């Protein structure tokens, strides 16, 4: 199958939009990745560097509160902390709305889809307190700027990021023979969590050529990497295991531990053939089909190896390959892709969504998404969302999609389109007769629009 502009919008973009043109070809889609980031300016999300100020402020306030115990100031400080929590919670919703609106209005929607893919590949979230709100700022700072460069840059930014360091327990990991461990008399020690996930999920893949020994050595090499509430990414030498570590047969580091050693091992892992295979397979499964054509995977893998992990070359191999345009076994949209492509087809006015209070947002966006099977920024584990369609097309998941499609669009778009026109907007000339019929036969506009959105033609990509 050759390039198809409508399929390009649906499969590699965020769906069709009434006022936005389909891409002219793969070249234009790739060029979009280096175009100015208009959406980040129009629907801003706080960069992590700014979010850190909140964390630093909180650390200070908590200290103040401790000192103020039993004094009249205590209550005022407690209030201030509460207010900060509330603001962060509201910002968390607003950022979710910004992600939706970027997908609704972007003229470079492949960027949004890639951000979704890599944010999920590098799933990280805060586990308690304020940092639970940090996922969007992390994505904005560590993922979004690195979508089309070398994988090793993205890998380093993501896995050494303070949020990942926190999520995978690296902040607590201490070299067994480090200065800190000696001072603490055995009360602290190594935690293998981040090392294991780097090998299993982020680079080589679970079938990759590594052993428990590699996990442990990498964990020892990672010691020293921690997070600091004021500066973020931080390397503390007194936590680091002294001496060299051997990962996949190569020795890293020495007597003067440095974050350079971590960068070096990550670069080698990024350039490993197993990583090329793993990432090519995962991208193909994500964008094309649960059973992608092996020739497509091979082409992407080759592009990856030839370019030392230049992601834009891998995307080019994907978009120029005929198997990427096959329509025999299309994927089902993930819940957020489903919801955002509906917002895009409806061209929902930003002010409606941004004007919601927390409860309205919860009922119309967050909770329906959860029932579809995706708990926003609360992953089940560091492996993120399931790629298999069967995980999403369940009675419950489908029921949640159908109910949302019929009920909520009218809240998001007060000027709901005529369902007969909406079929064309959303699906174009590919619309099946049954969907056209349902759009005509529905009793109300909301039912008609909802049935178009719930149709397999819209839910598949």
């Amino acid at each position, binding site marked *: 199958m050759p390039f198809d502009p409508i399929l390009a919008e649906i499969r590699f973009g965020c769906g069709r939009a009434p006022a936005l043109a389909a891409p002219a070809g793969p070249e234009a889609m790739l060029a979009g990745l280096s175009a100015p980031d208009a959406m980040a300016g129009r629907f801003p999300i706080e960069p992590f560097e700014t979010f850190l100020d909140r964390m630093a402020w909180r650390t200070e306030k908590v200290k103040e509160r401790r000192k103020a115990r039993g004094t009249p100031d205590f209550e005022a400080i407690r209030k201030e902390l509460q207010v900060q929590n509330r603001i962060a919670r509201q910002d968390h919703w607003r950022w979710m709305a910004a992600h939706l609106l970027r997908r609704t209005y972007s003229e470079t929607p492949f960027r949004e889809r890639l951000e979704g893919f890599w944010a999920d590949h590098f799933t990280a979230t805060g586990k308690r307190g304020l940092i639970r709100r940090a996922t969007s700022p992390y994505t904005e700072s560590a993922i979004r700027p690195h979508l089309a460069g070398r994988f090793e840059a993205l890998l380093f930014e993501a896995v050494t990021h303070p949020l990942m360091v926190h999520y995978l*327990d690296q902040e*607590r*990991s*201490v070299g067994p023979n480090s200065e800190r461990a000696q001072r603490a008399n055995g*009360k*602290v*020690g*190594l*935690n*293998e*969590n981040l090392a*294991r996930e780097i090998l*299993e999920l982020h680079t080589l893949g*679970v079938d990759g050529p590594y052993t*428990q020994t590699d996990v442990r050595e990498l964990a020892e090499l990672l010691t020293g990497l921690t997070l600091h509430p004021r500066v973020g990414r931080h390397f503390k030498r007194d936590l680091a295991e002294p001496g060299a570590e051997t990962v996949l047969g190569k020795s890293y580091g020495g007597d003067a531990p440095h974050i350079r050693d971590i960068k070096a091992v990550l670069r080698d892992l990024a350039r490993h053939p197993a990583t090329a295979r793993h990432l090519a397979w995962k991208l193909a499964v994500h964008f094309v089909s649960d059973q992608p054509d092996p020739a497509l995977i091979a082409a992407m893998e080759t592009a990856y190896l030839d370019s030392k992990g230049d992601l834009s070359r891998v995307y080019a191999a994907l978009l120029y390959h005929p198997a990427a345009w096959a329509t025999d076994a299309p994927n089902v949209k993930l819940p957020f892709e489903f919801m955002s492509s509906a917002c895009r087809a409806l061209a929902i006015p930003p002010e409606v969504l941004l004007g919601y209070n927390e409860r309205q947002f*919860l*009922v119309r966006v967050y*909770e*329906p998404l*959860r*029932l579809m*099977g995706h*708990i926003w920024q609360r992953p*089940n*584990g560091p*492996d993120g969302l*399931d790629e*298999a*369609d*069967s995980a999403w*097309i*369940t*009675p*419950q*998941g*489908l*029921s*949640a999609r*159908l*109910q949302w499609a*019929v*009920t909520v669009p*009218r*809240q998001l778009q007060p000027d709901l389109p005529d369902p007969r026109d909406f079929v064309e907007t959303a699906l174009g000339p590919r619309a*099946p007769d*049954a*969907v056209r*019929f*349902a759009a005509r*036969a*529905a*009793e*109300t506009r909301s*039912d008609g629009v909802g*049935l178009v959105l*719930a*149709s*397999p033609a819209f*839910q*598949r990509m």
Partner: protein
Amino acid sequence: MLNRRAFLTRSALVGCSLAASPLVTPVTFAATPGDHRLVVILLRGGMDGLAALAPYGDPGFAALRPDVQIGGDGHVDLDGFHALHPALRPLLPLWREGHLAAAHAVSTPYRDKRSHFDGQDILEAGIADLSNGLTRDGWLNRMLQHMPGAGTQTAYAVGSDALSILAGSAPVGRWTPEADLALSPQALNLAEMVMRDDPAMAAALAEAYQLADSDGDALAVGGGQAEMMAMMREDMRASRQPGAETRLAEFVAARLKEEARVAAFSINGWDTHNDQARGLGRALSRLSDTLLTLQAELPGPVWQRTVVVAMTEFGRTARMNGTRGTDHGTGGAMLLAGGAMRGGRVHADWPGLAESDLYARRDLMPTRDVRAHAGWLIRGMFGLEAGVIERDIFPGLSLGTDPGLLA
């Protein structure tokens, strides 16, 4: 806000009852396969068996787990060797009645890489390793394929995760109680029509209609947009309240009182790398609440025929780590509850806790395959032949001697 009861009355008046509607394929109530009920609870994240069920009688235990106290507010002695985590204290009456048992030093055949995802895949697939890739079906589904009379209502995957343990060619119901549908009769009809040519979606939708119609409130509503929104809000309010697992257990109990014989769901929160004392207590309390809810909701005679198996992908390190938690390990424990159990005992070929007894000098040594215990249970409950279990349900398993789990 419209409450659910008022809404029900209203929709009964103005809506159409779907049970009597030609929209829905009539449910086939096949002859039910026997009278036993099996509930499998997957404890995702790796439960620390040495903390849940502390083998304090082992001379090596105190050194590995210096924080565990027996008696007082701490662990509760069961049999002079094992002690139950304080968060499981509400289960003591079950233990005394012989409705609670455990197996210790057990694991799947999974070794060494200690990945949650592989560990759970192997646990749910029921296979020995991943060298030949993952099966596309789960062992509970393969079991259903060998149960004569198993129909669409026989087994339920409950909750919002994938539950590959029940994936496969035998039909399985999937639902979470807070999901719901409330649409106009015509919209329901048209939705069926647009999905007709997509087999996966058509099948999921048909099942959704049945479940949404059977879980206490009507599926087809006549009232329009406002009522639909009110119903969505109501469902979501309930889902935000604590005790989500209890709601799952209530739903499971309701199905088991009807045609269902098999159900599975998950309880998460066992990956206690840090400050285990807090996180593990919370997770165990949820497990305890879930088991007690099942017992409370099932009528006596049904509970007498029920077995609840709580299993996890692996145990955790024998020693505490540097952050007052435990890392991914190997051998662990499984909990078994239900009136059909011969309870009040811990089944184990105890390997010991001296460093040389540990697996890779770090984890509790597994001395029995969790699949063997599960195999003996389903053999006893559903009359499956040993050969079928060892060949089809748990390929390559050797059942070994009968541990005598059932009453």
